[in-house]
C-alpha cells in the first residue's frame, strides 16, 4: 500500500512538472509598431487580444535582440539569415513579434522579430 501511494505521488508530481514545462512557454506578442522611444528604450505595440485593441509598452534592455530575416547573400545559400537591428531601425507601422519576460510590471523584450516592414 505504501509503495503504491509513493508511486502515485511520484507519477503525479512528474505529471505536474511535465505539464508545467509543456504549458509554461509564453505566447509571443505580435502587433504593429506604434511608437519608438529610442532614448527611453521602449517600443509601443498596438496589439489585439480577445478582440480588443490595446497598446503594450515593451522595454528593451541591452541584452534584448532585434532582428529581421533576410535572404543570404552568399552564393548557393538558401533560406533566411538573421540581421541584427537597433531600436532606431524600427519604424511605426512595421509588424513585429516579441517574446517577452515579466520584470515587475514591465514587459521586457527577449527578442523582437520583424515580420513585415511597411
Amino acid at each position, binding site marked *: 500500500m505504501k509503495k503504491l501511494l509513493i508511486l502515485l505521488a511520484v507519477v503525479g508530481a512528474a505529471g505536474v512538472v511535465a505539464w508545467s514545462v509543456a504549458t509554461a512557454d509564453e505566447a509571443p506578442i505580435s*502587433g504593429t509598431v506604434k511608437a519608438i522611444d529610442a532614448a527611453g528604450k521602449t517600443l509601443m505595440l498596438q496589439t489585439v487580444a480577445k478582440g480588443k485593441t490595446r497598446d503594450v509598452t515593451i522595454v528593451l534592455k541591452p541584452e534584448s535582440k532585434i532582428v529581421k530575416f533576410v535572404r543570404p547573400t552568399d552564393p548557393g545559400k538558401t533560406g*533566411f539569415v538573421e540581421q541584427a537591428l537597433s531600436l532606431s531601425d524600427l519604424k511605426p507601422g512595421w509588424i513585429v513579434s516579441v*517574446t517577452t519576460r515579466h520584470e515587475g510590471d514591465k514587459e521586457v523584450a527577449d527578442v523582437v522579430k520583424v515580420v513585415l516592414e511597411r
Partner: protein
Amino acid sequence: MRPRTWWLAAIAPGALAIAMWISSPPPSRANGEKDHVDKGGHAHVPAPLDYADAHMPISGWTDPVMIARGKEIYVTKCAVCHGDSGDGKGPAGAALPLKPPDLRDKAGVAEMRDNYWLWRVSEGGQPEPFKSKGSAMPPWKADLSVEDRWAVIAYQHTFSGHQGPHVPWEHPEMVQVGRDIFAMACIQCHGVEGRGDGSVGATLSPRRAPQPRDLTSGQFKFRSTPSGQLPTTADLFRTVTEGVRSSGGPLTFGLSGHRIMPSFRHMPVAQRLEALEFVKSFYRGFWERAPAEAIVIPPAPPVTAERLARGKQLYADAECLACHGATGRGDGPSAPTLKDSTELPIAATDLTQPKRFKSGARPEDVYRTLRTGLAGTPMPSYADSLEPDQTWDLVYYVLSLSQEGIAREQPRGGGR
C-alpha cells in the same frame, strides 16, 4: 496512512495549483492563445459577401506563368513567415502567436475555398475571428493587385501537391458544411442534386410555375446583375434571407401573398453563406464567369404627378399591360398564355398586390426587377429600352397601382 503519505497527498494538489498559476500567462502579456496556436487557428469560415464572388479563373491554378509570378512575390513577401516550402515555419512565422498554416497539408488546403483564400490574403488578420486570435497576417490588398494576389495563391496551392484547379468539383470538402445545411433545410424542395425535384416542392403548385429552382440550370430570377448573367452571392443571400412570395395564380392553393420559399432569416449568417457556397457548386458557371457586377441603382427621385403620368404612358408603350393588364391585376390579354422556360404555365404578377412581388416591393426592388428582368420567366429586362429616369417613372407608376404603393410613395410637386 502514515504521516509522510498524508504529507505527500496534501502537497500534490498544492503543487498542481502553483504549477497552473505559474504556467498560465497573465492576460495582459500575450495576444496569442495557446489553444489557437496548437490548432493553427485557421477556421475556414465563409468569406463575407464582399469576397464571396471572387473566384480564381480556373486556368490560373495550373498556369505556369501565373504560378511563376506568384512564386516571385511569395519568396519576397510571404516566405519569411510561411516558409519557402509552405510549411508555415518561416523564421518570422515561428515567433507568431498564431502560426501560419501548413500549406502542404492536403486536407487543410482542400477545405479552403478560393474566395476565403483571397479574403485572407487581402485583409490579413484584420477581420474576425482571426483578429481575436492574434493573427499578425498583414493585409495585402493595398500592396498587391488582385491578379498578383491570385498569382500568390496559385503558387501557394502548388505546395499541397494538387495538380488540378482548386474548385469544389475537385475538392468537395470545401462545400461540405454547406452540403450538410442544404441536406437539412433545402433538399425537401430543391432535391438532393439541386434539380428542383425534392419531394415537397412540386406539391406547392402542381403543373404550374413557379417550381423550386433547378439550381443546376444556372437560371436565377432574382438578381442584381444584367440580363443573362448569374446572380451575385449577395443576390442569393437576399433570396435565402427574404424567401420568395407567391405571385398568385389559380393553382397556388392558399399561397397568394405567402412565401413559397421560406425565409431563412433565422439561420445564422455564416450558415446561410456556407449553404450558398454549396448551392453555387451545382453550377460551374459561378467559377467560369467574369467578376460579377451588380447594376447600379441610382438614388430614387421624388415622386411627382408628372413622373406618374410619364410612367403610365411607359406602362402602355412597353406593353406591360399585355401581361399585367390595364389595371395591373395580372389579367392582360397575354396572361393566360404565359409560360416559363420549362413550358409550365406562369401567372403574370398582380401589381395591385405588392406583397406578391417576388423580388421585393420597395422602389429600388422594382427598379432592379425592371432593369434585370426575371430569368426563366416572360418578364424581360428593360435595361436596353428604358433610360434610368424612365425606369423610375415606371417604378412609381407600378407602385401607384396598389393602395399600399400609393401610401408608401406619396406624390410630391403637384399632387394627383
